[in-house]
């Protein structure tokens, strides 16, 4: 960002919720751009201002107009992101002690992990005491696959007529959940704990599909549910919801 004539005020705001410090840069024609402090510090000029602590009242000479400022900002932001892309990995540790190194972006498919990272608490490893290595490796597989698909430049065309048979990820997902019941429930618990919506929906829907078309007795057998109704109680429940049982 160049420097010459008009004045600009750089202000520093601390957000209450997040620990990421933000700064607001104001261009010569009055538009404000809020960016992460770390991003803004790509500019040595701004970096010095912030480090010197003079930011609250300093008038910095900038003649940068809005459009220039925004494009510079976006270049700065993307550079920072590229930097992250090349280096940022996180290590996830399962309950039975195994470590998995994954790209940060993949790990952030989990909202839980995302918050941990954003809160700055992810130093070396993120321990996941509720997830075994077997399940964690599957979860990582899911996140990787879905992150890849989301990152594809040609968005999968959600056109009216599906000329291709199925969305390729749908087939992959179907294969992914062809596991034994125990693994399936472990995946549900992991997806819930790690807050991965897509995986939670996929696994829960799979269980729902296992219930479809079955009589209650068949459902009990499939899931080993013990019937603790007395015959009278059971008859009463049937009568209350009669339409459903016809």
């Amino acid at each position, binding site marked *: 960002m160049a420097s010459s004539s008009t004045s600009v005020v750089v202000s520093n705001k601390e957000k209450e919720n997040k620990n990421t410090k933000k700064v607001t840069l104001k261009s010569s024609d009055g538009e404000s751009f809020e960016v992460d402090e770390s991003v803004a510090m790509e500019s040595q000029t701004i970096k010095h201002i912030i480090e010197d602590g003079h930011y609250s009242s300093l008038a910095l000479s900038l003649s940068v107009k809005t459009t220039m400022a925004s494009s510079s900002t976006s270049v700065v932001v993307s550079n920072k992101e590229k930097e992250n892309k090349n280096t940022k990995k996180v290590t996830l540790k399962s309950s039975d002690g195994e470590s998995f190194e994954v790209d940060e972006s993949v790990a952030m498919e989990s909202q839980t992990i995302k918050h941990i990272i954003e809160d700055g608490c992810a130093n070396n490893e993120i321990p996941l005491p509720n997830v075994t290595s077997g399940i964690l490796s599957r979860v990582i597989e899911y996140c990787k696959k879905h992150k890849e698909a989301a990152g594809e430049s040609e968005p999968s065309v959600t056109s009216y*007529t599906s000329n291709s048979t199925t969305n390729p990820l749908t087939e992959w997902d179907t294969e992914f959940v062809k596991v034994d019941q125990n693994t399936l429930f472990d995946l549900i*618990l992991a997806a819930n704990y790690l807050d991965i919506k897509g995986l939670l929906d996929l696994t829960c829907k799979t269980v729902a599909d296992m219930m479809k078309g079955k009589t209650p007795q068949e*459902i009990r057998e499939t899931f080993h*549910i013990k019937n603790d*109704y007395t015959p009278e109680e059971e008859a009463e429940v049937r009568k*209350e919801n009669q339409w459903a049982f016809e």
Partner: protein
Amino acid sequence: MERMDVSSSICNTKNQKFSKEHDVGEGENRIGNLADAIVQHILSFLPTKDAAKTSILSNRWKYLWLSVSVLDFHDGAYHFTDAEEPPRKRKLFMDFVERVLLLREPSTITNFSLTCNVLSDSSRITTWISAAVKHTVQVLNIRLYKIGEPFMLPSCLFNCESLQELHLNIFNLLELPSFVSFSNLKILTLIRIVFPDDHSAQKLFKVCSILEELYLIFCSWENVKAVCISSPKIQKLYIQEKDPSYCNDTDDEDGENNSVDQNNDSDNESDNIDDQNSPVYLNDDIDDVHSSDEQSDDADDQCDSDGCQFAVFGTSLKYFSYMGDFVHGCHIQDSSSIVEAHLQAYNGAREIGYRALKLLWGLSNAKSLELDDNAVESLADADELLDHLPMFYSLTHIHIDWAVLIYKEQREALLTILRKSPSLSSLKFEGLSCMLCYSGTYDWTLDPVPGCFLTHLKTIEISMFNESEIELLAVKILLKSATILEKMVISFNPWQFEDADGLKKQQEVQEQILSFPRGSSSCLIAISCPPKKKKKIEFC
């Protein structure tokens, strides 16, 4: 959906440490150890009727299903026939819905779907819809049939701020209250709706300020002359006219599932476009104003003056699809954002060709165009206009649904379109010929060869390939003329080759095609036979 808190999850997952070696046969009640919220999430993927059945599994399950936030009621009755619902069953259904609405936890309802006959229960049904609205419903799907008394949707529906998707399938006059607001509505589907006038149609579209997808199917536009769709985020527009010659009252016999073999299958929207082949007019549903249209066998009844003029503004329109006789005009401000345009006609006739041409002028900057055989036939019938087709400079993909090659006019129409698409890189034929027996002469020449064949055409795909002479000739000509072709993909019509020597026939055809001279030195040919697959639409 709430997350379980960590402590309870640790408690519940004590058994999980052994899960690697755990024997399923041991019969542990894993589902019983899940938190209520997760079980309810599982149940939310079931129709409410199936979820209700879980009440009987054990004591723990007795009321779990009631507070699921996704409600889906389908009465399972006949909607399209005059057959009467057994009154007892009807009563049980009505009681069931009410019981759910009364007994559930007063938590939010995120999805509410209702499919049933109205008969003389307008006020009860209206109340149910109001209940969903009051519980900040996000996705509302209402399909009502057999309206036996005056029916009006509750006015609170029309300013429901939480609504993101609204699907209405009701043959009824749309009466809007004075205050209408849909500030969060992203998807709007209207099926069989009757618009009373320009003003209400316009009002409705205007308040949908962030609308992304709009589906207008079998609606009655006779009282609307013109309407503007200017939501800045509109991406998909789908218009399907009433099919005047089609009157079917035997579909949907069991009300639950119906297999319809569709070549153009909107799988994404199948739940909403279940009526695609079963327009829905019953004698007792006819509104006085529109009696002239009902069950008319004569397509000419809908003359141009009945058509509504749609003006579509905005630069984010990506998908445009029109199915019908192009009675309604569509003026698209900027078609350069359009990624896919589909035109399908109900009939092949001259006047339809004229109207199709008008539409095509508005789509001249689209990137992909799909036409069905009737649309091509209509254009062919109006062959004097073919030279006046616009140039499709941005068109890189053309998809023809059933190209009827035996008629010279239609071949010419297709060739004209190809000549007007200088940047075409991909061409697809879903079916090359309807008639396999042809006793004419095969004196076709591709003269002049469309420019794109020499400069841009890289991929040709042909599906539903039979072994007829016409198709083989077409393939031969295409292979010879497309001089920079990289890929030709042919897939057989599985039904054609299902007999005993099907495989042998496939082999022969394959060898024949592979032996044709190729105009492009780097052309690869892929030939396959896909498995038979009957496309199903589920009628919910």
